[in-house]
């Protein structure tokens, strides 16, 4: 293993463990912890918007935990690069604290964004419960966003690694600010795709997994000029195939 690979491994492993742990909780307790318990699909039979919102608000802690868990499962793998940046550029004694502040800033953007997405999904789900036509329309919209120049701009900024102050309050604020900024660009990049699993009741976990892989794949591509372009899992698939081939050759 090269020195750089060793350093990557040291950060990647705990971050991926957080994600795996969240996926395991989802798999074990899908009814209680997972978002479908509160999501619009679960309320598909309701016709009264306020009743649905009331139901959601009646279990705020559970809803918050469900969304937080969904974020941890789906987004943690996307945070490996920025967490490495903070880890590498902070004093050894401040690394955990700086990473926690980054995560807090990141969550401070994604948690309220989750409320907006849930309400949006609720409105869409109640408008035409179980309608496959609606799903197709939403999917087309998500794909248009996926291939748009705005999406590329957001994605590019997810690759930005700002300079970080090293000492005292300034260091704390920089870590927090980095998390907030990263969260904003991440929401800009991912919100449309994140909406899809919220609308799918059957196969919700599978939809989450597919979206996670897509989000992870697009982060593997280098930043590029902002224009309309295909943004799919091509590079990730090629890497996966090559890695599998290498493993088979070894065995």
């Amino acid at each position: 293993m090269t020195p750089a690979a060793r350093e990557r491994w040291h950060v990647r492993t705990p971050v991926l463990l957080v994600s795996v742990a969240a996926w395991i909780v989802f798999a074990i307790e899908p009814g209680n912890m997972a978002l479908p318990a509160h999501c619009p699909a679960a309320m598909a039979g309701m016709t009264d918007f306020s009743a649905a919102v009331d139901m959601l608000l009646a279990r705020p802690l559970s809803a918050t935990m469900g969304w937080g868990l969904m974020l941890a499962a789906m987004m943690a793998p996307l945070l490996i690069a920025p967490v490495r940046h903070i880890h590498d550029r902070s004093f050894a004694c401040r690394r955990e604290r700086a990473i926690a502040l980054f995560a807090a800033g990141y969550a401070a953007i994604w948690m309220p964004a989750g409320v907006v997405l849930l309400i949006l999904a609720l409105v869409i789900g109640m408008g035409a419960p179980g309608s496959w036509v609606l799903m197709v329309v939403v999917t087309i919209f998500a794909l248009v966003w996926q291939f748009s120049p705005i999406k590329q701009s957001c994605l590019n900024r997810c690759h930005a690694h700002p300079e970080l102050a090293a000492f005292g309050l300034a260091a704390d604020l920089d870590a927090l600010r980095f998390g907030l900024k990263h969260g904003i660009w991440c929401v800009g990049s991912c919100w449309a795709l994140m909406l899809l699993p919220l609308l799918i009741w059957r196969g919700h976990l599978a939809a989450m997994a597919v979206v996670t892989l897509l989000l992870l794949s697009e982060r593997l591509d280098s930043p590029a000029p902002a224009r309309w372009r295909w943004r799919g899992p091509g590079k990730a698939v090629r890497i996966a195939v090559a890695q599998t081939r290498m493993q088979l050759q070894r065995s």
Partner: protein
Amino acid sequence: MAFTRRNVWNLGGDWADPILWYARGVAAMKAKTLAEPISWRFYGAIHGFNSQLWQRVGYYDPSEKMPGAPDVKRFWLQCQHGSWYFLPWHRGYLLAFEQNIRAAIKDMKGAPKDWALPYWNYFKPNQNQLPPAFASPDWPDGKGNNPLYVKQRYGPDDNGKVYVPMDEVNLKAMDDPDFTGVASGGSPGFGGVDTGFEHGGPVHGRLERQPHDQVHVLVGGGTRQDPGLMSDPRIAGLDPIFYLHHANIDRLWQVWRQNPPAHVDPPQDNWKKGPGNTGQRVFSMPLPDGTAWDYTPGDVADLSKLGYNYDDLSPATAAMQPADRLMRLGANAEVVKAAKGVRAVATGKNVELLGANQGALKITGSEASTSVKLDQGVRNKVAANLNLAKAAGIAEAAIAPDRVFLNLENVRGFSDATALKVYIDLPAGAKPADHPERLAGSVSLFGASKASMADDEHAGKGLTLVLEITDIVDALHLSNKLNMDSLDVRIVPRRPVPKDAEVSIGRVSIFRQGR
């Protein structure tokens, strides 16, 4: 057939055969259109391309026919920078380029079949001037149309006088015991950091940073509005001197490899088999017979197997041995004796921040300075580690004392020709030139323009320039001056930096690497 790359200054004349045939080959390649894969400009675009920049320097007209999309996708924008593939990718590039030159001249009367690129070894005494064949618009075959002459080659003082100032370049990289390193603040290694396909990573390997990058910008010169071709990686491959410079860098790789077992190429499959092996882009060059040559670092690592050699592989410098440093740090005679003959000892794995300045540093005019505050705990760790050398037993001598690195992080700007000298702990009011012992090194912004754009491959992160300051820290330690709260860093540009170059350093930091 055997091919020998020779020193351009020792060919026996300004227009000795190898350089004259090179010029004729370049002329033939230049006569082809951009759409032809073995044309001069197509080869330049393999290294880098930017339509606006190419237009600005007069090498591209938007109305001309472009190559087909598959050719662009396969061949263009390939150069590997800020990566452990830097050396092998450029070696393959040179090998393919030489084949094209040989093919271009093969039907000319008297053309040598064994033609090989000369190299420009600017480190040899009195050989730091631009070879004369490149400096005049006239040549033996014509007036005013010398294919080796380039108007946009402005030199270190931006006055058209092209040479490599010897106080701006060094061969310290040749002492680095490790081919590959880290991007986290410690040594990036002789050959660069382990990456995938990387068309411009932020942290360059030590040989790439110095002398490679430095010679690029010193030869190219220029400004933001009027850059020298060599100064920017997106246009550098258009200057014929580029290939002689890279032949020298390739030669230095061969020289470095002559010191096994410490100086060896990476044994990892990911390096030997290249990025194509992990599903990424494959290194690929168009050849004169219309085919494409796909290659890996493993294919080109052994030059002799490819039938190539250099006329001079003598050691570049009198390298400092590990025993010398142990002696300097006060190790006992027995330990020093045991360490004698050891070419290099492994660098420690722990990299950690030792100190940093506060706030971004703008570089304008002829000087900038900042203060790097040190963390007391980590500073004491470094001092204790250096003191260990005194008490070390023979077994401990196998572990290198801490190395220390200055990092200029997130360096952004739009004039790649900017060259900066970096001084540490200069006395107040002192003239930097009077204190060469405080010179941490010279760095340049080669690749910074591209790295500063938010919607380009670097996402606007800029470059991170790494300088080893172990010798300076050792000196401070030995004179009991390391016990300080901060270190002053003074940046002295070779030429005053104009405001419109927008040069800034996001953070100046110091890292230790060791046990």
